[in-house]
């Protein structure tokens, strides 16, 4: 028998890997009859036995086992969410710090950039006394409506009205806005402690009236002849417009340039506010 074939057969016999009965008989006979083959078989069988029985088997160190399991075992849902929350607040301190700063900055920006809070106070209750412009304007409008107060000049010409005010001794710049819908009806100059004040009236096709009473801001401060509550003056000074509507009559207070203007009308509150808050 060839050496290679013998070696293969002998090895397969030692490892019990021969399934062919004829091959099995062949090698058994050889082992029985040939001392050399018998010796080889005994050596190989011994080596298999020695390795199988004597070679030490080491268990996986528990540290290694735990490490591997930790690396491959998926986290439970609870652990995942716990880790997610902890991760936000503790796992990456630099990121947490950065995020906190961004949140604080965002809050500061929101606080400082929010639109100015419009607190519409009811200033009408504060307007009292005969020298109060708000009170006077309302009374004057009632008198105009009743026919008790008649325009001293009837004209729809702004220049003519301006000339009238100047001629009558009004010392401040008069604002006479022009509107498509409303036309000038006329004007009145009132006298209070020697000072002259301008009043003018518009009307529309429906007979609605819009009454203007305007005075320089000086008459509320140094040369104090007129009066408005401090709150309302401050409110107007900030560029706000105050309006109130009562029994079909609307009263609007605004400031344009140096003039404080009271507008009283029987037009709708929407129109009053929409058209007369900003007077140019």
């Amino acid at each position: 028998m060839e050496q290679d074939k013998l070696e293969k057969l002998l090895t397969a016999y030692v490892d019990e890997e021969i399934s062919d009965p004829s091959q099995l008989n062949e090698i058994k006979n050889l082992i029985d009859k040939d001392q050399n083959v018998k010796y080889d078989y005994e050596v190989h069988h011994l080596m298999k036995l020695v390795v199988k029985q004597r070679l030490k088997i080491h268990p996986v160190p528990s540290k290694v086992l735990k490490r591997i399991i930790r690396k491959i075992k998926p986290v439970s849902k609870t652990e995942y969410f716990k880790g997610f929350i902890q991760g936000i607040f503790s796992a990456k301190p630099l990121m947490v710090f950065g995020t906190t700063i961004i949140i604080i900055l965002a809050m500061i920006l929101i606080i400082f950039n929010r639109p100015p809070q419009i607190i519409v106070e009811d200033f009408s209750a504060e307007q009292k006394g005969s020298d109060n412009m708000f009170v006077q304007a309302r009374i004057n409008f009632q008198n105009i409506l009743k026919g008790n107060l008649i325009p001293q000049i009837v004209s729809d010409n702004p220049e003519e009205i301006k000339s009238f005010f100047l001629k009558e001794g009004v010392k401040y710049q008069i604002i006479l806005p022009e509107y498509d819908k409303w036309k000038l009806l006329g004007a009145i100059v009132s006298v209070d402690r020697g000072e002259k004040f301008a009043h003018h009236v518009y009307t529309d096709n429906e007979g609605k009236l819009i009454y203007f009473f305007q005075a320089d801001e000086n008459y509320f401060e140094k040369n104090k002849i007129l009066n408005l509550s401090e709150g309302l003056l401050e409110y107007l000074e900030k560029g706000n417009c105050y309006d109130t509507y009562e029994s079909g009559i609307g009263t609007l207070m605004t400031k344009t340039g140096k003039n404080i203007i009271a507008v009283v009308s029987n037009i709708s509150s929407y129109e009053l506010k929409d058209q007369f808050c900003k007077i140019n």
Partner: protein
Amino acid sequence: MFYPIILAVDVLEEQSKLYSSFEKEALPHMDALYNFALRMTGNRDEASGLLQETYLRSFRFYDKFETRTNCKAWLFRVMRNAYINISRKKSKEPQKLDFDEIEKFYKKIKSSTDSSQMEKEIFKILDDELSEVVSSLPEDFRIVIVLCDIENFSYEEIADFVDCPVGTVKLRLFRARKMLFTKLHKYSDKLGYIKKD
């Protein structure tokens, strides 16, 4: 915001199912793989690293592993590939082997020692000393001995692992055992376990 969390929960459930199967099929072979890694690397730390790499890789590809096939053999193949990668990085030179010298020495022993005496002498060797001798075998021979005699792999499985025909496995086993025998004999002689006439 909530959509990724729902996705994460689905992934977690899938991973959890996969792990349960992996735990049942793959984890029982960990000792065998660790010992094989020890025989291959000869170093506990490297063996631990190789074992970890094997399990991480095998879990990563476990969904592609067809169940009911031989999980142990598959894990050993994963370890072999991981070991090849590590070996390439280390660029170890293959051990040189003078088989003629082994053959000569074997014949010399054969003519001077009977098998029963030889068995007694070799069994005097301590377990750790035996491990040392097995570890000193060239890698190709060490692999077939460990897989066949310790892990009880069939010739087909060994052939698949070492990627060569079954006939080559048989010849390699034959030579490996002969080599082991001569080495053990030399070792026993060196330690004075062998009686000299």
